[in-house]
């Protein structure tokens, strides 16, 4: 009895040794290729509008560099900026310029503009309106117009669906579509997905979404007759768009720099970005600075 026990133990030990040796061998192979492997952990936090894009880019990047681990979280643009400024995250994703956010020291953050996203007012599909003038839009969101019949729609109450005060989509929409006017109190939901669900299901609802969230279940509205399309945004005709910023604290290096460079390659800019409904930053014919001044490139 005792003998068999010892034999089993010995075999187990041998097996363990073999396994360890195997591991060591592979390690050596990895470094022997004379190509330093990228490694490290990256956390990216922030804008829910950017989340699907960064997630997909991260998955592809991790497939290429198995020693790099990238965690992508939402939380909103404000969260992204706050967390990266505090050093809690490596990348802070934001729809807005860091300069636009109170209480953030923008000078210590480095801005990487990775793409552009348009935003549009969206209505419940049963509201038979597809164009609003800017004044009408402002009147609707500030609560001056409360019935759709005042703008040529059905006799139905307007239901506002807002994003919370700290949302980047809201900040962009307020600045470029409403001209800074303050919205009336409405339903408030803290994610774009929920806004879409509510606008889809609630009669008379109007909200706003990043174009990447449009899937045909809600209707995007033309502003002053201009459709929120890629062509109109790149040419500067449709004003409601924002850069998608990936902020880092100081100059990035190592795996972080490699990942941010990877996002700017054609592999991401020409495939993932248009696939998900974003516009590559390289295709923009206009540029905008933090104070909102637009000029052609």
């Amino acid at each position: 009895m005792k003998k068999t026990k010892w034999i089993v133990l010995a075999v187990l030990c041998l097996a363990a040794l073999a396994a360890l040796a195997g591991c060591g061998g592979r390690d050596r192979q990895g470094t022997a290729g004379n190509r330093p492997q990228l490694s490290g952990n990256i956390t990216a936090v922030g804008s829910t509008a950017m989340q699907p894009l960064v997630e997909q880019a991260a998955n592809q990047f991790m497939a290429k560099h198995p020693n790099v681990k990238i965690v992508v979280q939402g939380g909103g643009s404000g969260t992204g900026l706050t967390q990266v400024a505090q050093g809690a995250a490596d990348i802070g994703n934001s729809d807005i310029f860091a300069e636009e956010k109170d209480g953030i020291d923008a000078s210590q953050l480095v801005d990487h503009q990775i793409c552009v996203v348009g935003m549009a007012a969206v209505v419940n599909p049963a509201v038979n309106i597809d164009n609003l003038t800017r004044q009408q839009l402002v009147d609707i969101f500030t609560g001056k117009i409360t019935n759709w019949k005042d703008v040529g729609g059905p006799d139905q109450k307007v239901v506002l669906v807002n994003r919370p005060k700290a949302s980047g989509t809201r900040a962009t929409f307020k600045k470029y579509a409403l001209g800074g006017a303050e919205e009336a109190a409405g339903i408030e939901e803290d994610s774009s997905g929920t806004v879409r669900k509510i606008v889809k299901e609630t009669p008379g609802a109007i909200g706003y979404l990043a174009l990447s969230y449009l899937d045909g279940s809600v209707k995007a509205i033309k502003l002053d007759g201009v459709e929120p399309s890629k062509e109109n945004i790149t040419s500067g005709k449709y004003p409601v768009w924002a850069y998608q910023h990936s902020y880092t604290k100081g100059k990035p290096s190592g795996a972080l720099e490699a990942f941010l460079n990877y996002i700017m390659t054609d592999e991401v800019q020409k495939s993932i970005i248009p696939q998900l409904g974003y516009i590559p930053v390289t295709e923009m014919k206009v540029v905008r600075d933090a104070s909102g001044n637009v000029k052609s490139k």
Partner: protein
Amino acid sequence: MKKDLACMIFKLSGSELLGRVLTTGAAALAIISTVTIIAFISVKGLSTFIDNGISLKEFLLSSHWYPDRPLEEGGPQVGILAFVFGSVVVSTLAVILSAPLSIACAVFMVEIAPNWGQRLLRPAIEVLAGIPSVVYGYIGLSLLVPFIRENIGGLGFSVLAGFLVLSLMIIPTIVGISADSLKALPREWKEAAYALGSTRWQAIRLVLLPAARSGLITGIVLGLARAFGEALAVQMVIGNTRKIPASILDPVTTLTSAITMDMGNTPMGSLWNNALWSMGLLLLAISCFFIIIIRFVANKGGIAQ
């Protein structure tokens, strides 16, 4: 002195000493964490009033919540009346609906059908307590909200939806405590009531319920405290409109949901962030208030704890 100490250590040697150290340590840890949490929230929460110079009156009694409005337009303003109002209305209505139901349930479980009440009803109610609140919220959002919109009116996102979801969520709290306090009553009291010729209903209503009163009130207050603190499920069905509702079908917002919506989006140390901490401090104060009530009631009742 030294000898005494050595003597004590000798006495407490072995498992005795280990057990004592473990339990004292655990108790101390609980006390320390409570005290530090309260201290932290107080420091953060009070800085709205101390550092930012917002008056308590303005904070509690104004419903203008514009923490991001620039100075030149009259901001920033942090009045939380609408949130407090929403919290109070939604949780009070939930308890008003839930308390009679839950107490009836407890009476049924203990006095009327103790057999299958204990075997079936109790586990069923305990399962209710175990369902995660996000599930309640999602069911509310997917079933209750459209139901209200189509059959009763309004948007569906409403005070009504909020308190219905909450009242279901606090049933286990109230039933559990009420049933325990009813069960703790001496058998003789019920028998004496029967001996005097009362019916079962009379015995329950005139003897058992009054005797268990302090336990029942404890259950209700704990239910109310739970309702006040619940964030996720409520947030999903109330619409989060920062305005005092005019009717039960209007959307509303609560303290907890206002905190979760903005939390993390605000830079540490800003007025906005401090105001959120102050709201947290207010929630903490409210739950302390409830705990004091319970202590008071339990001491006064004296029969069933």
